[in-house]
């Protein structure tokens, strides 16, 4: 049993990839739907990685992650309304998200985190959710706004199939932001310290790592990823810029994080892309699956993973010899 089980995940992933590639080669509609599904998936992946970052460091699901993403997306919109062009506003928003996320952790989470109870922290994140969502409504109102897209609404033709540039750009940016993050964790001293603080906070403190600062930094990075997800999502005609725009996306991102194994950023990325592509194909090929059914489908997926394989696709396997 154990001997086979380590082949199940690669086989499953390989099967999915082959299915997507073969399908795309057979039909141009399939190819288009796959790409636009992957674009959604890139958004789930970014937000999913944000959830994983905080979960890994504190064992807490940050329920406010979607609301923070919404807030920063409004910030980006505001900057553009004030006259900044897209990319300066994009990067300024990332900086603001980083500072904001760090401060939010300092002000709301750190005081309750000291008490050391996971449940208290979860409830604090719910409080942050209400606070941030409320301030979005208070500052910008409930009306739907138009968020300019990062890329021109054009298509490019590859082998007779037309892909939306917006979709391709979304996939590219989501993956790029995750790769930058991965490089930060892998190659920098601060990234190494953040990982150490997440895995063994007590031992990290003994070598001089200021663990509580690492947590604040983690919130800042998570908020940045959320901002990327939000700015990409708001440009999509099916989401638009509105106070509850991330509610549905957060559910898909939960599903991605859970399917990926909750502690694995790479897992969240792969799972997010897969969920995006598969759900989009389901919605367009299976006639009785309406868009309303896709959100419950994500829930079902999450439940199944938690029941059958709680460590997900890429869950951390405990290696320890005594």
């Amino acid at each position, binding site marked *: 049993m154990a001997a086979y089980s380590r082949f199940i995940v690669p086989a499953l992933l390989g099967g999915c990839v082959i299915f997507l590639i073969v399908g795309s080669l057979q039909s141009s509609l399939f190819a288009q739907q796959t790409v636009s599904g992957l674009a959604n998936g890139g958004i789930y992946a970014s937000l999913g990685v944000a959830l994983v970052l905080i979960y890994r460091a504190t064992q807490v699901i940050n329920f406010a992650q979607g609301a923070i993403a919404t807030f920063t997306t409004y910030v980006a919109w505001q900057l553009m309304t004030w006259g900044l062009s897209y990319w300066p506003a994009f990067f300024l928003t990332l900086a603001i998200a980083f500072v904001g996320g760090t401060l939010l952790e300092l002000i709301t989470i750190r005081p309750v985190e000291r008490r050391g109870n996971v449940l208290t922290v979860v409830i604090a994140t719910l409080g942050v959710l209400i606070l941030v969502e409320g301030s979005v409504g208070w500052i910008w109102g409930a009306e739907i706004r138009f968020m300019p897209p990062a890329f021109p609404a054009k298509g490019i033709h590859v082998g007779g199939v037309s892909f939306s540039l917006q979709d391709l750009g979304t996939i590219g940016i989501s993956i790029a932001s995750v790769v930058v993050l991965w490089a930060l964790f892998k190659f920098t*001293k601060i990234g*190494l*310290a953040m*990982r*150490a603080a997440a*895995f*063994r906070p*007590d*031992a*990290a*403190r*003994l*070598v*001089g*790592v*200021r*663990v509580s600062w690492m947590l604040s930094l983690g919130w800042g990075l998570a908020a940045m990823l959320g901002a990327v997800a939000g700015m990409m999502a708001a440009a999509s005609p099916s989401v638009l810029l509105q106070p509850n725009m991330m509610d549905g996306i957060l559910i898909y991102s939960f599903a991605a994080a859970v399917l990926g194994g909750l502690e694995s950023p790479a897992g969240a990325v792969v799972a997010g892309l897969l969920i995006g592509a598969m759900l989009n194909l389901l919605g367009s090929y299976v006639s009785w699956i309406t868009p309303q059914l896709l959100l419950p489908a994500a829930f079902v997926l999450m439940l199944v993973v938690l029941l059958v394989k709680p460590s997900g696709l890429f869950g*951390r396997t*405990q*290696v*320890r*010899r*005594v």
Partner: protein
Amino acid sequence: MPSLLELQEVDARYGPVRALHGVTLTVGEGEIVALLGANGAGKTTTLRAVSGTVRRGGTILFDGKELRGGPEAVARRGVAHVPEGRGTFSELTVWENLRLGAYTRRGSIEADIKESLASFPWLEERRNQQAGTLSGGEQQMLAIARAMMQRPKLLMVDEPSLGLAPLVVAEIFRNLKTYNEQQGLTVLLVEQNARNSLAVSHRAYLLETGRVVLSGESDELAQHEGIRRSYLGY
């Protein structure tokens, strides 16, 4: 010999339970000092009180100045603590563990990594291996090598021999002795095995229920009637 570490009437408690009742001891520069005692005597807690991982009272002087704050601050003063259970990062690679040891230092550490790999040669070929996949003895040596990356003035080691084969234990103690003799490293050692720790140390303190009950030169203590009966078993 100038004293590097001085504990004056140090208390420590875990919640309502008091684990140390006014421990007073000194560790001189360049000395290896051992803490002896049965389980629950307060040996581990004494180390934790120094590194700030337990709430403490009383006065702790290090290098002439009071030692304050949590473990992050204590590490920055030049105290390395290898805790019970080693405190290696099992999910990280051997190289990353060594890198973290030098976290508080600035500048290049490549030369130091080379040096510590040289004193534990088998670490070299495993530098990219996850620390959790090493054997218990290898992890213990990695933990000590990582502590040395900090270039500490004081190294505190807690139960390095726990669960390890005698040959491995001998190698670990030989390494501690070498660090002490060649680099003048000061060591505060907690060790269940009284025979080993009296052999490697210059002086020792005996703890019972959170108090120092006996102290002296290690070779004299090894002859002491009570110690022999209770801790050396002959």
